[in-house]
């Protein structure tokens, strides 16, 4: 679909930007913002594979982010598990949950699929808010620092290089996946499920695999967010956060790997940029969403790529 916008040259460009960025950031506030952008970019990459390539909408992805975050917060705190183990158990648990519901949920289409994923996300959010003996309730709970083989990961500098490396690996993996037989099968089923099925694509299984994968991405990044911030509240799993993630996909460009990154960067920066509007930030955010959908419905990256192509 956006084959031209999904070349490996972009990966080099992004890696270059990631390497030089820290040297241009005036203070730790911006480094913290950069870390959040990169974390969101990785979640959105996974979500975009699901939406753009498998053609399945998810209005509850923040639920998976929340599960990962609270696995990393609660398991070490209550059971004394090592944080790294908690992170992987969280990801595995989220993956299992996604796999368990994938069958019935992904059979649904259009607004029914939207409803089911939305419902799943909201249920996870309500559970996290209500089970206060484990999660601290609406006020949230502190998260222990991440220790890897005895070394404690701390400081924004360290976190930045970790998430930057993870982003490059994720982009590389996504590009490879899209160009593999698996990716082509996904695109086929996005075009027409029945045609894909007739051509021998195991539609159900492919959709389920990508759903589980994107859920695991989200969970791992939830864990990393939790360790980076050091404190976590259930609002990380709420409906508005799910919508934020979905918006990043659409503003950046559905089915565009680099669009995911650009969408995540733009929409993570936006609330910061609007913070001076005193009360009007919600209105401004809404106006920007609506105008984006009216004027660049295909997303920023594919639109620019098309312009560029026409210019030649």
């Amino acid at each position, binding site marked *: 679909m956006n084959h031209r916008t999904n070349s490996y040259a972009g990966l080099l460009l992004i890696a270059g930007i990631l390497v030089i960025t820290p040297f241009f950031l005036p203070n730790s506030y911006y480094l913290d913002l950069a870390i959040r952008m990169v974390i969101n970019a990785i979640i959105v990459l996974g979500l975009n594979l699901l939406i753009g390539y498998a053609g399945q909408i998810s209005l509850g992805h923040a639920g998976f982010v929340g599960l990962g975050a609270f696995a990393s917060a609660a398991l070490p705190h209550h059971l004394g598990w090592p944080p790294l183990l908690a992170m992987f158990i969280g990801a595995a648990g989220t993956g299992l949950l996604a796999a368990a519901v994938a069958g019935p949920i992904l059979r649904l289409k259009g607004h029914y699929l939207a409803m089911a994923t939305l419902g799943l996300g*909201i249920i996870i959010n309500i559970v996290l808010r*209500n089970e206060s003996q484990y999660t601290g309730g609406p006020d949230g709970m502190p998260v222990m620092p991440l220790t890897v083989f005895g070394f404690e990961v701390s400081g924004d500098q360290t976190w930045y290089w970790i998430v930057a490396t993870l982003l490059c690996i994720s982009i590389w993996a996504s590009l490879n996946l899209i160009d593999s037989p698996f990716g082509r099968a996904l695109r086929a089923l996005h075009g027409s*499920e029945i045609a894909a099925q007739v051509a021998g694509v195991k539609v159900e299984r492919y959709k389920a695999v990508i759903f589980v994968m994107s859920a695991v991405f989200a969970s791992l990044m939830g864990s990393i967010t939790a360790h980076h911030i050091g404190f976590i509240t259930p609002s990380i799993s709420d409906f508005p956060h799910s919508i934020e993630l979905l918006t990043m996909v659409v503003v950046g460009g559905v089915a565009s790997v680099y669009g995911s990154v650009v969408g995540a960067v733009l929409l993570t920066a936006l609330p910061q940029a609007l913070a001076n509007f005193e009360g009007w930030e919600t209105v401004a955010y809404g106006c920007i969403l609506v105008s984006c959908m009216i004027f660049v419905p295909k997303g920023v990256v594919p639109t620019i790529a098309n312009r560029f192509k026409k210019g030649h």
Partner: protein
Amino acid sequence: MLATFLQFVISGLTVGAVYALVALGFTLVYNASHVINFAQGEFVMLGGMLAALFIHSGTPPALAVVLAILIPALVGILMEKVAIEPIKGADTITLIIVTLGVSLIVRGIVQVALGKGTHTIPPFSGNEPIRILGATLPTQSLWVFGGTAVAVLLLWYFFSKTISGKAMLATAYNQVASQLTGINTNWVLMMSFALAAAIGAIGGVLVTPITMTSFDAGIMLGLKGFVAAVLGGMGSGPGAVVGGLLVGLIEATAAGYISSAYKDAIPFILILFILFFMPNGLLGKKATDRI
């Protein structure tokens, strides 16, 4: 025992009636345009908030109620003209994000203009509840039932007896064919948003004396109304009403007997089960896929 049960039924049917109105709003817009209007809940909030604003500023109650319904209807028309018409026929995801954007704008403006506080209006006919078999029935609940019934009857009359209503039904059935017979489908689209906003606002005005309202009350109301619409089978008018009442009843009884902390989760657990076992809702048509 019976009294408690009856109490749950009363409160369940009261909020259920409001969910039914929200679900009808979803249905109207969905039939006219295949848009799932996530701003639907905001019209309920807007109705309640405006009624509170006008009544507390000394407007005669009857006029306040009329204004609290008319203004959201105008907002609905504005929304359709500015945000929906320019992108007619876009992807489901694009349309969903646009309606979410509009809901943020409405919520944000209300928050700035009227503050973050909780608002309420006095019940329409006093605070003295009626006692039935040990349970109390607030008179305002009767207003909610009556108001919902009147709104549903008016909608039924509009769609089955008037030319405009039939034009809207025809458009829902086949847009191109309707256009060919001379129906102004843009007008239909605009009307559906105006009607959806107005009946949402009616729900908001009616229920505010019982539940109170605030700038963020529209989110959950909208989502539960969506559950009700899907439960009844998206696109079915009677389904929306049945779905709304059922969601209200099940929510109230489950909250009462099982867990009140999980009250807000119950409609969503319910809808997941329904979708897993009856993917087309209770009264919906079987979906067919065009290849």
